[in-house]
């Protein structure tokens, strides 16, 4: 263990070069993806080949394309062409005979035999914050206990905590997003502990925090500034004495993560790959997710504000958002397959619920959790399966309703994690990874 720690320090140690300092600054600003070029390749970070190999070792991994705001099932996986609820877009055939999806997804249609879709998601929360909470944690909240988010569980179960490569990464160019922003300010890893929380990268589209909150008095504001100034000077002095690196484990952890900064540098990725994924921020971050998974991360969540929440301009927005998602899934699944990684890497594309079968007056679709869809591929998910169905207008699930518990049981089982296992932590009441003794969706599981 001591030897490992030593190696760890060697591979992640700050050499004091200006490059490392630049990466630390960027990392702490949450803006690593903004593109300062690094001269080092990722592999060069590992001075011990065995560790590099270990870090990249094959195991189950997951990429969650978090379609925050909630996409419309009608314009994606469950079209209802020619009906009052179907919207203006047509349905097209797919590589699975008899199965149609939205005309906005021609690329996914061509690889439908590699994807699987649940058309019968039916969940309770119909507001964003609660929906995000349930669909990322798998369960309704039970205060004061906080259930860890999916990425934290997967990182804890399948990841390597001592790896210099972050095991759970959240990539998000647009950290705003009303309810999503509020959610993100909360506790991600819950009772597992902060070490299983995500490393977050992105944020170039953040709103500058320049206004003093009304709740903060001028006196408090000045006190905080004095404290900030003190700590800043202290940090500067410590740096000059070269003592900062040794302070505590947390700081070393940050240093370790900083050493991976090249992994977060979009500019280092091949231009041909960047072109294939498409120019938008979400597409570029999806490519980076693939890159991180290839290089040792276990769970990467890609989010992008809340662009899918189209209460206004539903079709005007989905005409752009869905084709981008279509291409991302096509490229991602193709890349993982080409690299022999699809079998072990699960890709999930979902939001917190669906959209109403009806249009509101503002050309929008509102929140709808009674009947909605999501897509999955790879990582233990049987390809080419469509689970459940909805009625002809998409109002109700008519076959095989799936709730958040069954979804999570399926995800965990496919990744090789026991859904029924009880958490064994001090001072914690009896909690299971998935509550309610529910069964995974067997038809979705490989072998």
């Amino acid at each position, binding site marked *: 263990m001591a030897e490992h720690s030593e190696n760890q320090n060697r591979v992640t140690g700050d050499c004091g070069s200006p490059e490392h300092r630049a990466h630390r600054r960027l990392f702490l600003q949450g803006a690593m993806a903004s593109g300062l070029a690094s001269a080092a390749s990722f592999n060069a970070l590992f001075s011990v080949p065995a560790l590099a190999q270990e870090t990249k070792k094959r195991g189950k991994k997951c990429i969650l394309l978090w379609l925050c*705001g909630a996409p419309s099932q009608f314009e994606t996986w469950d079209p209802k062409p020619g009906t*009052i*609820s179907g919207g*203006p*877009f*047509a349905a097209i055939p797919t590589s699975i005979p008899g199965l149609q999806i939205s005309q906005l997804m021609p690329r996914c249609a061509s690889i439908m035999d590699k994807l699987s879709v649940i058309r019968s998601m039916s969940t309770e929360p119909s507001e964003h914050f609660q929906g995000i909470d349930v669909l990322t944690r798998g369960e309704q909240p039970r205060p004061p206990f906080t259930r860890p988010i999916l990425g934290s569980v997967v990182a804890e179960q399948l990841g390597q905590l001592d790896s210099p490569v972050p095991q759970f990464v959240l990539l998000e*160019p*647009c950290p*705003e*997003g*009303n309810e999503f922003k509020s959610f993100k300010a909360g506790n991600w890893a819950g009772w597992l502990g902060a070490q299983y929380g995500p490393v977050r990268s992105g944020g170039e*589209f953040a*709103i500058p925090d320049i206004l003093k909150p009304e709740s903060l008095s001028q006196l408090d504001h000045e006190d905080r500034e004095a404290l900030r100034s003190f700590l800043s000077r202290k940090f500067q002095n410590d740096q000059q004495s070269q003592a900062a690196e040794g302070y505590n484990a947390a700081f070393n952890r940050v240093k370790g993560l900083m050493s991976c900064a090249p992994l977060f540098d979009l500019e280092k990725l091949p231009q041909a790959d960047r072109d294939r994924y*498409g*120019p*938008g*921020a979400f*597409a*570029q971050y999806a490519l980076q997710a693939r890159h991180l998974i290839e290089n040792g991360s276990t769970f990467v969540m890609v989010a*992008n*504000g*809340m*662009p899918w*929440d*189209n*209460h*206004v*301009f539903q079709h*005007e*927005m989905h*005409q*752009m*958002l869905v*084709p*981008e998602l279509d291409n991302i899934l096509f490229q991602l699944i193709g890349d993982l397959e080409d690299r022999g990684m699809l079998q072990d890497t699960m890709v999930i594309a979902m939001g917190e619920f669906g959209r*109403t*079968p*009806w*249009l*509101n*007056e*503002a*050309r*929008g679709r509102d929140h709808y959790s009674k009947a909605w869809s999501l897509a999955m591929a790879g990582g233990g998910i049987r390809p080419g399966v469509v689970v459940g169905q909805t009625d002809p207008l998409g109002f109700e699930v008519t076959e095989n309703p799936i709730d958040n518990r069954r979804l999570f049981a399926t995800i965990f089982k496919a990744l090789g994690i026991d859904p029924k296992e009880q958490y064994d932590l001090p001072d914690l009441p009896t909690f299971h990874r998935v509550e309610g003794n529910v069964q995974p969706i067997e038809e979705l599981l490989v072998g």
Partner: protein
Amino acid sequence: MQKTITRIHDFKLPTAILGACLLQDHRELIAACLDGIYRVELDTKKHQRIGGHDSYVSSAVYIPEQQTFITAGYDGKLKWFSAQDNSLLREEKVHAFWSWDMALSADQRWLASVTGQYLAGDYKYSPAQETEASVKILDATDGKLVHALRHVPSVQSVAFSHNSQWIAAGNLMGEVRVWDVASGEQVGGFESKDFTSWGIIKSHCYLGGIFAMEFSPDDSELIVCGMGDMRDPMAGNGKQLWQRWNWKESKLVAQTNEKQAGEGLMESLVLHPARDSFLMGGRLRGGDWNAALFDLSSGERIGTIKSGYRITQMLFDNQGRLVVVGGQGQPGKSNEGKFPDFGRVEVYELKT
């Protein structure tokens, strides 16, 4: 001088109406609806579905000389119908994507239809370049293509000048291009940043743009409308906005008086027959009107309508009455399998 705008007649159609035209005697209306094309008797409220497109029907125009009406749809097609018997005379696949809007020149010779799918063009989601010509001018009689003109998608509104010499088209990004109809040569235009939102909250992409336009009576200016900038475009709470531009000099002449505007997308413009004022209408998100009459010279608001539904088109009949069409939100509950009607037709009188 203030005008009173009074509703004198109203009824419903099965689904929302996106566009409309009046037929010869102005007693009948062709309604472009989500579920097809309806022929409507304004006085008796009788209506009949006489055809459809493979998607929403987005606009309709009537050619008196030919006794035909033409519809455009989100299937990218234009369809010619006989006004005498509603028979389908011709159909042309004009665009690969939607026809967002269609216009007929005043001399009844030219039809124009505009298209364009908004696709991601860069990291910040500026629109990608067009993959098909965004503006097409057709011979109104035989549907033959006259000009295919370039623009940046999505192109959402189009209008001919009153002298039929120019055509203007406006897009998502607030850019308006003006061409000479005869030559197809671009002769002017402007770009207004005020109609487009980039959503730093929720949606960091572009929404909005110019949804309707009209040339001024002397054709020297263009009046355009839409919705003002929003930090959160999903709120739909941008200012009810019109602007008047000298399109030859790319110069803003006038715009909505802020104190007279509420919130909501404006998507219909029409000149008053007296040519001294214009009406702008759309959706009410905040405020107390969703259509208003504005004095053309001063820009002052001189009359308002609060319809209670989204207005998509307004037309004046030959008696000076205002015909307003649009739609409420789509009902979420059916009554024994039938959804309540949510398309709206209303007739108003304007009095001083």
